[in-house]
């Protein structure tokens, strides 16, 4: 299940930035065990969730709204292709397996495990950073 979740997040970076990378092409992937907990980090310097979605959902206002939509609505920045189920899968299975996901994009941060919190933050992250913690 960890591989499926990580695969979905990593694949998104490539699918939504192909041909339009803002920064360095590709993703950073790293993992380590800290006190018997597995920590996985994926990061890209792409266009970020808001810039991916605002072309297909023009009333999107900011990074926070974009993260909410990405994790909760069936929508994809690559419309009219029929897709957009990956982050819903990620969210559902983070919750079901007791993992914790922190996801940054632009000026927004989302936290998921058995709760969901999406907030605006002061720091700006170009692209996306996903941090998964698993006991």
């Amino acid at each position: 299940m960890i591989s499926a979740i990580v695969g979905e997040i990593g694949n998104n970076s490539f699918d939504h930035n192909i041909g339009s990378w803002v920064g360095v092409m590709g993703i950073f992937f790293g993992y380590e065990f800290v006190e018997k907990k597995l920590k996985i980090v994926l990061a890209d310097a792409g266009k970020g969730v808001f810039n991916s979605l605002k072309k297909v959902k023009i009333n999107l206002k900011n990074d926070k709204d974009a993260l909410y939509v990405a994790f909760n609505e069936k929508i994809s920045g690559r419309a009219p292709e029929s897709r957009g189920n990956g982050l819903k899968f990620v969210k559902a299975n983070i919750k079901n397996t007791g993992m914790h996901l922190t996801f940054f994009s632009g000026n927004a941060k989302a936290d998921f495990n058995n709760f969901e919190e999406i907030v605006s933050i002061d720091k700006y992250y170009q692209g996306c950073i996903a941090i998964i913690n698993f006991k």
Partner: protein
Amino acid sequence: MKIELKKFGDILISRPAGREAYLAMLAYILKDVDKSEEIEIDFEGIKVMAPSWADEVITKVAENYKNIKLINTENSSVKATLKTLKEFSGLSLVI
């Protein structure tokens, strides 16, 4: 007609890989198969499946063939993926 997914690998992740698998499936497995024929999709041996890959394969097979049976779906990522496809891609197969 049985489709053994393990012949496409045991870690089935990403849309590009799924699209390639489906195109190969169309050319070599599903070519000339009648739309009414039973298609058995066998998940035996799959270690990891993600919805991006499956959406390019399972959803498309299900759109074109109405008599589909899914077998050996016990793997947790397979179960979770099929659940996601039912909820977000309109997959209406009985699992």
